[in-house]
């Protein structure tokens, strides 16, 4: 069985994710590139977890415990979010 695609992303982008300055207002600042972003509350939640965790299962577990969401939709949305991040954190 191959690795979950998000685990690959999390280990590859671990350093980039950690350097992001996150603010509860949804303002995100990347000190390396000088780029700033707006992230929505669920995106912020995921970013905070990703800064602590490299295991997608643990992140999913946390989100599913907190939010009214199925595992299937979470996986789909998380994948799409990681595609966005991959683009901006290059």
């Amino acid at each position: 069985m191959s690795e979950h695609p998000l685990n690959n992303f999390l280990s590859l982008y671990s350093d980039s994710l950690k350097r992001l300055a996150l603010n509860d207002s949804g303002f995100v600042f990347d000190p390396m590139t000088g780029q700033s972003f707006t992230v929505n509350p669920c995106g912020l939640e995921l970013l905070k977890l990703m800064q602590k965790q490299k295991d997608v299962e643990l992140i999913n577990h946390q989100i599913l415990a907190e939010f009214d969401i199925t595992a299937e939709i979470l996986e789909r949305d998380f994948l799409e979010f990681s595609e966005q991040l991959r683009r901006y954190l290059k």
Partner: protein
Amino acid sequence: MKTASKKVHQLTVAITGMNARADNPGPGVAVARCLREVAKFEGKIIGLGYDVLDPGLFQTELTDAGYLLPYPSAGEHELLERLQYIQEQEQIDILIPCLDAEILSMIHLQDQIAELGITMLLPSEAQLQLRNKDRLHQFASSADVKTPKQTTITSSSFFYDCEKKGWSYPLVVKGQFYDAGIAHNPEQAVGLFHKIAAVWGMPILVQKLIEGDEVNLTGLGDGKGNLLGAVMMRKRAVTEKGKAWAGMTVHDEGLLQAAQKLVAALKWSGPLEVEMMRDKHGDYYLIEINPRFPAWIYLAKASGNNLPWTLLEMLQQQPLSKLTAPVAGTLFIRYAQEVIVSLADFEAMTMTGERAVELL
């Protein structure tokens, strides 16, 4: 009324047009500077902008707070809602709109904005429209002021046979709202026609090009036909966009008389800028009347007439400070300077559209 009792030097004044790109600055920062430098002024100045990078929103020495407004294309309802919110935070007494594109919205919303407790000095919608680009020549001739020969066209075929009809190149090709260019031959003219029509729509205005000196005048209309505090300026150097980056006060009787005739005919109320060309025969041609203070308004203050301050006095129905006939020869040179913004302020403006007054 709440504002009438307030002293002029205690007012909270909101000013739009806080944009200040070096090649084409808005007037807001200069208007704020005119007020801030009045020694007895203890009120607050609220900067209103349309872009996070409008520097006036962050210049703490000029503005006490800064807020973003919705773009005019978003509609009047959105503008009013935003002003309501800002009013809850800041208790503004007077608003000075400084951008052409927002004046009509402000006129439409004037009553509702007044209900919020904010007063403005604006022309009526009819007065504003008389000076629209496509009607200006009609109005000006009724006021006995010349304009460059002008016609409206809807087909570019005009440019191929216009010489038979008494036109000669170079010609000015203009959009009905904005944008203009000079064409030296039919091919250039047709190119401009299509470029401008694609953005600003039909019809297109064609004008005879007047060669000579551009002279500008700013002042205040009192609504009864009088022009108060006129200050005149001739551009000495311009940016790539044709905006002044150096200019000098002048006293040009021809310009003054033309402006007085226009203000009298319009019964103009509020700030205005009159742009004219003086050709080599000494004839004056009206190019534009702008319904606001110009970006060079600080020159008016520096040469003796602080017109933004006079505007506050007019709105508060107070006796006006003495206005003079400015001495010719005062020069301004514009320069660029960096405004420093902390990440926190940048974040606040980005996320919430405001830099609120800091509580001490």
